[in-house]
C-alpha cells in the first residue's frame, strides 16, 4: 500500500515539470501590468510561504480530527 502511494505521488510530482517548461514568451504581454516586481524582488516566495503555512495548518487540523475520530471509533 505504501509503495503504491509513493508511486502515485511520484507520478503526480511530474506535474511540477510544467513550471520549468517554456515554449513561447509573448511580446504583447509587455503592455499589461503584472506582478513582475514582486517576482524580481523575490517577494512572491513570501506569498507562497504564507499560503502554504495556512494550508498546512488547516491540513494538520483536519488530520488531528481524523485521528480523534478514528480513536473514538476504535473504542466503540
Amino acid at each position, binding site marked *: 500500500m505504501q509503495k503504491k*502511494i509513493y508511486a502515485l505521488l511520484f507520478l503526480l510530482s511530474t*506535474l511540477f515539470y510544467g513550471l520549468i517548461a517554456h515554449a513561447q514568451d509573448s511580446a504583447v504581454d509587455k503592455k499589461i501590468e503584472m506582478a513582475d516586481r514582486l517576482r524580481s524582488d523575490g517577494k512572491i516566495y513570501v506569498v507562497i510561504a504564507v499560503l502554504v503555512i495556512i494550508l498546512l495548518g488547516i491540513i494538520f487540523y483536519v488530520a488531528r480530527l481524523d485521528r480523534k475520530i478514528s480513536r473514538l471509533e476504535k473504542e466503540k
Partner: protein
Amino acid sequence: MLRQNWWKIVGVFLLLYTFIAGFLGEVPAKPILNETIRNLYFHVAMWMAMMVFFIISVIYSIKYLRSNNHIFDIYALEYAKAGIVFGSLGVITGSVWARYTWGAFWSNDPKQLGAVIALLIYLAYLVLRNSMTDIDKRARIGAVYNIFAFAMLFPTIWIIPRMVESLHPGGMGNPALSSDDIDSRMRIIFWPGAVPGWTLLGVWITSLRIRLSIMQEQKM
C-alpha cells in the same frame, strides 16, 4: 474507504501543487484581470468541487429512496452541506474578485443572482429537514427535495446566466472557460491540481462529519 489515508495524502499534495505552481507558474497577461486570473485555481475550483458534492449528495438521496438505508441519508445530508459551504465560498470569493474587476462587490449579475438562488434552494433543504421530527419522514421528504434542488442548479447556474448578457465569463452563449480566461499553462494546474485537490479536501472533511454522525446515531 473513508478510513483509508492514501487519497487524503494525494489531495494534500495536489493542493500544495496548486498553491505553489499557482503563484510561481506563468499566466497570460489580460487587461483588467492582471494577476487576479490566478483566482481560477481558487474561485472556479470552489464551484467545480461544489458540483461534485451536490452530485454525490443527490446520488445518495436516490440510493436512500430505493433502499431506506439510513446511512445513505447521512451521506446525502453531509455532502449537501459540503456543497453549500463550497458554493458559499465561491460566491464570496467571486464577490471579492468582482470588487476589483467589475467595480463592485455585487452587480446583480445573472450569474451572481443564479448562484445565490441555487444556494438558497439548498439552504431550504436544511430548513425543511429540521422542520420535521420524525427521522424517516425527514430523510424521505429531504431526499425528494434534494433531487429538486439538484435539478434547479442547472437553470440557475448553468443555463440562464450562460444565455443572457453577463459580466461573468460565459454569457451570451460564449464558452465558459475560453481562451480569454485560461491557457494551457493554467490548465495543467487547474484540472489535475486545483479541482481534484479542493474536491478531495472537501471529501475528507465531509467523511469526518459522516463518521461522527454515524457514531452519534449508534450511541442513541
